[in-house]
């Protein structure tokens, strides 16, 4: 149909061919955008700065009063930050070793107490009374300015 020289220099530009080329370049261009858009978004830092790791920062932790305790989130489990009557910071897992209820600080006796079945731990996490069979897991505590940094021991 197209009786043109077949030296292969310039191809015959029929409307269909140029349409096809146009389609091809557009769709390839679109696919490149579809690839680079997520990549660009990925490189943009997300709002929640950093992953929660094996160390947790309790902001303004040093505002915790003496002879009181505070529950905080450690990874996916609760922990309890305790400030002894002497002002020292300690942290433990807040999961009672009896039946996994969350413990709390009891001011009146300066002990850690589990409300479920009256289990009692001393301020070193040792189980001293009631059903709990084991002491509470102890965490390391460090102070950094106003914040308290708790990490796995």
């Amino acid at each position, binding site marked *: 149909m197209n009786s043109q020289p077949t030296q292969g220099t310039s191809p015959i530009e029929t409307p269909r061919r140029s349409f096809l080329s146009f389609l*091809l370049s557009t*769709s*390839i261009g679109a*696919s490149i955008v579809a690839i680079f858009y997520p990549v660009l978004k990925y490189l943009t830092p997300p709002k929640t700065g950093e992953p929660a790791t094996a160390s947790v920062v309790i902001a303004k932790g040093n505002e915790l009063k003496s002879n009181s305790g505070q529950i905080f989130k450690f990874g996916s489990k609760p922990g309890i930050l305790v400030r002894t009557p002497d002002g020292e910071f300690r942290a433990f897992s807040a999961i009672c070793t*009896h039946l996994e209820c969350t413990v709390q600080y009891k001011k009146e006796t300066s002990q850690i107490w589990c409300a479920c079945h*009256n289990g009692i731990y001393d301020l070193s996490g040792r189980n001293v009374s009631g059903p709990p069979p084991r002491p509470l897991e102890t965490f390391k505590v460090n102070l950094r300015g106003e914040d308290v940094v708790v990490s796995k021991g």
Partner: protein
Amino acid sequence: MTSKLRWISRLGYGWALGLSLLMTSPALAEPPQNKCLDCHSALEGNLQVKSEKWATDVHMAKGFDCAACHGGDPTQMDNKLAMNRAKGFIGAPKGLAIVHLCGKCHSDAAFMRKYNPAERVDQMNEYFTSVHGKRLKEGDINVATCVSCHGVHEIRVVSDPRSRVYPLNVADTCGVCHSNAQLMAPYHIKTNQKEEYQKSVHYEALAKKGDLSAPTCNKCHGNHGAAPPGIGSVANVCGQCHAIFADLFDKSPHKAAFARMDLPSCVHCHGNHEIKRPTDDLLGVAEGALCVQCHVAGDAGYKQAESMRKGINQLKVALAGSESLLTQAEQKGMEVSQPTYDLIEGRQELTKARTQVHSFNAANVEGDVKAGLLISARTEEKGKQALSEYQFRRKGLAVSLIIILAVIVTLYFKIKDIERRQKAE
């Protein structure tokens, strides 16, 4: 001695004679030993003491022989010489004599200190305050004494799982008498306690979950000073473990009201032996709820009950809704471990609300319910976000696939076009 006993002892005499002839021969001369078992292990009935059984006994392990309790001369094979009253032989003691015999050592602090300084020495005193002890003093020999529970010649320490008074075995030991209708009939005591107890949540914790701190008969009734706790003390007894509930109840209007009506606080609603896991249906004003057993429509208590139940229901429904949303998201492959963790806190608020019920003050319950609803709302939001993210991904995939398909199709036609062109050349 009864004639039966006399006949048996004559048999034993014959045995003993033959054996002692053998034993006294120089070839078999041995150091002084416990000859009592030589006969008594072969006897039948009440007089039988199997040596395998005695070998497991804690007293034997500590070096006490038969004479330490029964008196007599354990080195003698001859009946009369062995079971010699002059040598302190007391036979098999009965009733009060048993208690005093055990108490001779076990109430002697100086003596017990030689074996276990930390062991209590007031069991005998306690015993005499118990129902068993009091009746025994009045002459009733059918009541339990030391040996009824601890055994006689195979006494093990309490911490030994094979001991009859090991926590797992206590109910069975008490049940030997207390589940026996014939025995209990003269006292007009029910015999279904063990059966009921075995349906309870305490038994489940003890026997099935292996929690040895869970209560069995002696935790509530006492072991040596066994008696049912008085109506006024029930709350104290339950409160030994369930402290927070006892505390709340103490400060609630029910304390005075129940005392006035002579009702046994905790037991009145929760039962004593067949304590089942409480459900929310106990609370409220619907038919079958406990509150309406006393309260009527319009009175203050009725309103409190109604409000408390409503609040708790609300929270329960909200939490269930959040949970199902999160499960949906998780099954769709979305990562929802964070809100799932937060939901645990929400459930704890529900538990706290249910605990606060025991203050019988709707405002307290409402506080925990509100906190729980807040958490539930937050996790519900996260769940919805996860599901909408899921939808977003699917839509994004569809869009990308359309673009890629467009590329593939145009590529295909382009290739065909080029090939056609090349063929023509």
